[in-house]
């Protein structure tokens, strides 16, 4: 069996095309800063926005440090409760990333599993699964996520819901995005299952599950990596949108979307930085991830070279 496509791709070819594109290098740097800042927030952030004892209402509504009344202790200003915006953004990016990555993992697992089943088994399983995917693809995924979130919200009592809200959001965004993965994997599985190595595996009497998991799966994962990267941007945006609408993550764990929603209330009183800086952080994160995804797609697709 040949080495899986996604392992083979990480040779010097890919590295070369990476170095050759300044936009890609720049977005990789931005993405690294975002991810690094988010992951290391407890170490790097100048303040702890969740430590109520350290908050001082006298520090509320401070503009960014470069403005006339700015304070160097709060480089990006403070919000209505005197929280440092830079720290809040770093902690918020953590939640955004956590939800985004988990949702993509969830839809990847679900989509790959169902796509593999549909493609390898064919027949009724294939027809039913693909029909469901078609119906779901008719609707924009953000709508599906909203709806799943709303139904779960209605089904659970409020106290329970607040505890599991993070998982609900991950589930809702994940479920809204599986058809993409399932369709791609099904397509490549249809091609792979008629190849000779699969026939050979069947001849020596391996079980269908074993053939699917150890023989077909590694050969259909190449495109999945690209879709997963591109989906990460979507998932982060979807989470921000849900949180902005007030149905996303609980207010006790504010994500970037929650920060933007809170800041939106102060837009008219002139405190623009409370909403614009989290927004800028969100855009930087999503844009860099999307550009990296685009580059990966082009680099792994020999037809475009």
């Amino acid at each position, binding site marked *: 069996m040949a080495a899986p496509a996604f392992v083979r791709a990480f040779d010097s070819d890919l590295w070369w095309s990476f170095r050759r594109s300044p936009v890609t290098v720049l977005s990789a740097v931005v993405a690294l800063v975002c991810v690094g800042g988010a992951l290391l927030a407890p170490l790097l952030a100048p303040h702890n926005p969740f430590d109520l004892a350290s908050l001082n209402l006298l520090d509320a509504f401070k503009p960014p440090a470069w403005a006339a009344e700015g304070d160097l202790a709060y480089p990006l200003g403070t919000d209505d409760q005197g929280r440092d915006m830079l720290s809040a953004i770093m902690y918020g990016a953590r939640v955004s990333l956590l939800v985004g990555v988990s949702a993509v993992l969830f839809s990847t697992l679900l989509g790959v599993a169902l796509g593999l089943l549909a493609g390898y088994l064919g027949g009724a399983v294939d027809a039913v699964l693909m*029909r469901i995917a078609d*119906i779901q693809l*008719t*609707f*924009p995924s*953000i*709508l599906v996520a*909203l*709806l799943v*979130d*709303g*139904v779960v*919200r*209605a*089904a659970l009592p409020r106290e329970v819901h607040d505890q599991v809200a993070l998982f609900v959001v991950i589930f809702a965004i994940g479920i809204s995005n599986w058809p993409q993965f399932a369709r791609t994997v099904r397509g490549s599985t249809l091609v792979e299952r008629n190849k000779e190595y699969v026939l050979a595996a069947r001849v020596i009497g391996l079980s269908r599950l074993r053939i699917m998991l150890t023989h077909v799966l590694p050969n259909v994962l190449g495109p999945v990596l690209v879709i997963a990267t591109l989906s990460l941007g979507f998932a982060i*945006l979807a989470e*921000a*949108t849900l949180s*902005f*609408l*007030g*149905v996303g993550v609980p207010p006790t764990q504010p994500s970037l979307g929650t920060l*933007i929603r809170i800041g*939106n209330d102060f*837009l*008219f009183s*002139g405190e*623009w930085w409370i*909403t*614009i800086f989290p*927004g800028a952080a*969100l*855009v930087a994160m*999503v*844009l860099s991830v*999307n550009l990296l995804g685009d580059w990966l797609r082009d680099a792994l697709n020999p037809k475009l070279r």
Partner: protein
Amino acid sequence: MFAFILSRILQALPVMLTVALISFAMFAYVGDPVAIMLGQDFTEAQRDALVRELGLDQPFFVQFAKFVVNAAQGEFGLSYRLSRPVAELIAERAPATLELAFCAAALALLVGVPMGVYTGLYRNSWLSRFFLTFSLIGVSLPTFLIGILLILIFSVWLGWLPSFGRGDVVQLGWWSTGFLTWSGIRALILPSITLGLFQLTLIMRLVRAEMLEVLRTDYIKFARARGLPNRAVHFGHALKNTLVPVITIAGLQLGAIIAFAIVTETVFQWPGMGLLFIQSVNAADIPVMAAYLLLIALVFVVINLVVDLLYYAVDPRLRVERGAVRGA
């Protein structure tokens, strides 16, 4: 032609039934309508009477059939949150959303297509480069941030345009319109741009890519060789042949416009269906959610049908192929 329409409608039916089943399952299994309607104090007998009256003791399929019949007549019961008929609530809010969606779609098409044609024809001019950079921003900014930025610039800093609501509306029968008053039109500007910007950039990029493709083909060279004026070549021959994918995407994006209207309506406190829906999600108001879901599904199915019919009108090849198959 008739057989084609009929087959498309038959394909749409299972979609609608599936969505109806999901809405019905929400009604039947999420929350307890009996408990909500009875309130705190009730006897077992009262409860049983209400269960019988609502038909909740009937078998699943009887209940589902009743739900479908009622839904087909626009009957969705009362909103848990507002205690008013759901159909009435939606009818009241629909004009606001439809006018907004119409303006956004018009903006996207009327600006997006010419920009796409221009960038396709003059691909190296500085204006084309500017349009392309601008479109990258349009694609990367989330809808709600575009709205917030527009409000910040045009309402807070410049004070030119209103930032929330519909302005003054004129009542035409049951339809309330913002098109007839100055403040209504002013109120439409920022939300329409917010909602339409993403679609605009998408359509522009699509038209550009298709134009570049078509301009390379032989029949364009032939049209030029025949000495046809540029205008006839660009619009009569090139643009016309880019229309099939543009119609598909534009049609499907119309659905996306209605979905993203939820976000835009929240940012601008626009009193439409999307705001109603998000308030219902927050309050777990199942009847409104179920009705909205069915309505959106209907809109999507109708859009898909119309897109298919437009193919027919735009691309004569489809007619010939189908005719040939039928003749054989």
